């Protein structure tokens, strides 16, 4: 999966710096694209803020105050210089600093994403190795079947069914919505985190577990595993010392991609569980055409995505140079 040019020459550091520079360029392009797209959105932010009762003069006045009547380039330049100076601007919708709005939400989303990753990685390895080792056994077949089912299942359906099952209809043991009150840290509310984390984890494990399983099977079938057997090593040593590290290494790029997908996948999960994270904020910002908030959300998500993607490339490159 992972792409792009391996470090053919020059030091790895230079390559990494190059990739980071490209990353900044990508982020810049993302922001330009987003800016242009929002300009084309129907509906004027000033009108959205003022509502249908406001007169045209009031709308024009607000546009002036928000700086929306300046040329596009000037507006963008204003925003960009602000961001480069560490100022993400203020929300058009409610006038609060974007950083204040996003900081707790970034924390919430990242907690959700990182907790899920903390579960996805070991579980995937565990399940992948186990099913690969017990290849074609009943548990293996069951896992393969269930994971097929899950790749076909939209996230909203998983969320909806989990809520119905664990919170509202069948068992009532978990909260049906995962609201983290403002000012609280997400991990003060472990019960609220269970269902969203479970949803992300299920989706992740079903995908990554399959990949680990496949790469573990590859590792077990490899020449070096055969060589280890021919050296008279014990089955356990062949499995854990020879096959496992390589299987895990082979899955690392995919794991990074899963991490990237998990970070961006929180959008849907947050919506389903009303979790106050970046995703829900982004959806409302899009609905309200709140460009500064939208920009900041997408930049955070895109950065996270790019970092994990870069990790995938780094792992792939390490793998290739082996």
């Amino acid at each position: 999966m992972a792409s792009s040019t391996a470090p053919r020459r020059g030091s790895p550091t230079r390559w990494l710096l190059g990739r980071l520079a490209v990353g900044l360029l990508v982020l810049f392009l993302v922001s330009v694209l987003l800016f242009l797209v929002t300009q084309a959105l129907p509906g004027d932010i000033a009108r959205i803020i003022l509502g249908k009762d406001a007169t045209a003069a009031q709308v024009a006045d607000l546009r002036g105050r928000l700086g929306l009547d300046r040329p596009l380039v000037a507006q963008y330049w204003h925003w960009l210089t602000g961001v480069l100076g560490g100022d993400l601007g203020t929300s058009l919708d409610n006038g609060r600093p974007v950083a204040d709005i996003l900081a707790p939400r970034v924390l919430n989303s990242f907690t959700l994403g990182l907790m899920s990753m903390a579960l996805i990685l070991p579980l995937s390895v565990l399940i992948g190795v186990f099913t690969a080792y017990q290849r074609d056994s009943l548990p293996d077949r069951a896992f393969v079947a269930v994971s097929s089912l899950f790749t076909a299942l939209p996230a909203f359906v998983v969320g909806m069914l989990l809520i119905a099952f664990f919170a509202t209809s069948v068992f009532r043991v978990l909260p049906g919505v995962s609201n983290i009150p403002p000012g609280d840290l997400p991990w003060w509310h472990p019960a609220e985190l269970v269902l969203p984390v479970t949803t992300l984890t299920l989706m992740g494990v079903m995908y990554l577990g399959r990949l680990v399983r496949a790469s573990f099977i590859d590792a077990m079938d490899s020449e070096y595993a055969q060589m280890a057997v021919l050296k008279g090593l014990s089955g356990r040593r062949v499995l854990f010392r020879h096959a496992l590290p390589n299987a895990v290494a082979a899955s690392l790029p995919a794991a990074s991609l899963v991490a990237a997908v998990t970070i961006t996948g929180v959008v849907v999960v947050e919506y389903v569980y009303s979790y106050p994270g970046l995703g829900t904020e982004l959806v409302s910002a899009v609905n309200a055409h709140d460009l500064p908030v939208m920009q900041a959300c997408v930049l955070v998500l895109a950065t996270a995505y790019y970092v994990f993607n870069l990790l995938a490339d780094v792992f792939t490159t390490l793998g290739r140079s082996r």
Partner: protein
Amino acid sequence: MEVEVSGVTVRADATGHDIVRDIGFELARGSVLGVVGESGSGKSTLALALLGFARKGATITGGRVVVDDVDLLALPEKELRRARGSRVAYVPQDPATALNPSLSLATQLTEGLRLPRREALARVRSLLEAVGLPGDDAFLRRRPRQLSGGQQQRVAIAMAVAPGPRLIVLDEPTTGLDVSTQARVLEVVRELCRSRDLAAIYVSHDLAVVAEVADRVLVVYGGEVVEHGSLARAAHPYTRALLAAVPSSTHRHRLVPIPGRAPGIGADRSGCVFAPRCAHAAEECSSRPPLVEVPSGTLARCWRTAEVARSPRPAVVVDAAPPFSGDEILTVSGLNAGYGGRQTLFEVSFGLARGECLALVGESGSGKTTMSRCLVGLHEEQEGKIVFDGQVLAPRRDKDLRRELQYVFQNPYGSLSPQRTVESSLLVPLRHYFGLKGTEARRRAHEALDRVEIPTHLANRYPAELSGGQRQRVAIARALVCRPKLLICDEITSALDVSVQAAVVELLRSLLAEGLSMIFVTHDLAVVRSIADTVTVLNQGRVVEKGTADAVLSSPTHPYTRSLVAATLDVPDTFEHAG
């Protein structure tokens, strides 16, 4: 006797056919047995079976492998595991994939020694030094990918020897190595066997290597032993045919290919397996001959050794052509080229007369691949002058130039599109260069296939259905339909079995005879001797020696060429006297 093997049979689970069948031999400590066979002969399966191991999808169904009075095949799983490594050790064909990429050398070398770490390390250090590698900590901390191919192979050998086995099985350990590296590895193997009183089984497809390293040779064909003994005294028609197909670096002789294809698994085994391709086959060959001692002194599985012995080897020595005096079709002068800023060719100059065959010789890293890419215009970072047929080759070449300068690739598996039939592959250039379609294009394609001796019925086959040699001949045919003036052949025989290589070399020789000019890129001096008129030797991107093939190979002047010639192995010559 140290090692006694008998009746070893391995079966493919899916089809129930035997991959190797009823193999037996004996081996004394300190001696080396060579196992020779072409691809698909079952020699690797045999090598693994000697450790009581069969690959997925295969089962050892019978036989004994007795080492030090213990029959490995009769041991329960746990004890067999202990016996592996400590009694029988294995050296893999490709250490690049067989060494675990994520473990340090120290770990891989010491694991399974059943010794305290300090002692284990001490033993490993001394062994590494014995195989000519440093035994220091820095080296032991390395991962396999940080070693060269030759180093990896010596580590693999040290790894095999470390637990102190009685028998060591080496599966094609020098395939893919340069001749000079190969020479060092062979030296290590010989030295270890001698000094540690080890029995060794050396599996290879290369007769010259086996003849060099082994005391006796087991020739495997179609999963069976067809001959057992000294190559110099070969009596079996297959062994003799193989020897006839091997080129020699010392003199030019006609190479005799073996017609037909090697039998697959599941071929009819009621009679002699070689009979379908044997020039001496007779009615009696429809029943299976036993492996018996024959007059030459070897054990051979053939009814007709007497007749075979009477037909002498057709060692037709071909004289080198007189030096060419005609105009040069290609002149390379002052060529510098590189990749990504790193220069790989330095001031390379040479010329090629019309109708001549020039061999571009070099080991890996010599720059010969860059050189051929420059010639066909694939390489972009280059400066210097290449004049072809009176025209300076510009980076953007016109259609006719491209047509007249054709290129045949090294790998027979990649040079033809797997999605095109043989005929379709040939129609592409016909359409591109001549705008030909339909009947006329097909006629020209078939003409070319005829020329390379590909039967018409193969025209609609896909490459996957052809043998390596057939594919290489189709690739040549594809070049021929372009009506080239110069053919560049990049290691085109290196991936082929000798019997097949012979056919390709003979084909090229006949094309030369028809006036085609040719550049033959290779590392194999024997092939050079059998085909080239002049030789240009490349080392580290520089031309170190050029001259006629005879002059360069027989009396090399540059030290590098000399070492190359010295490291090149040849099959024994003593053959003629045996009959």
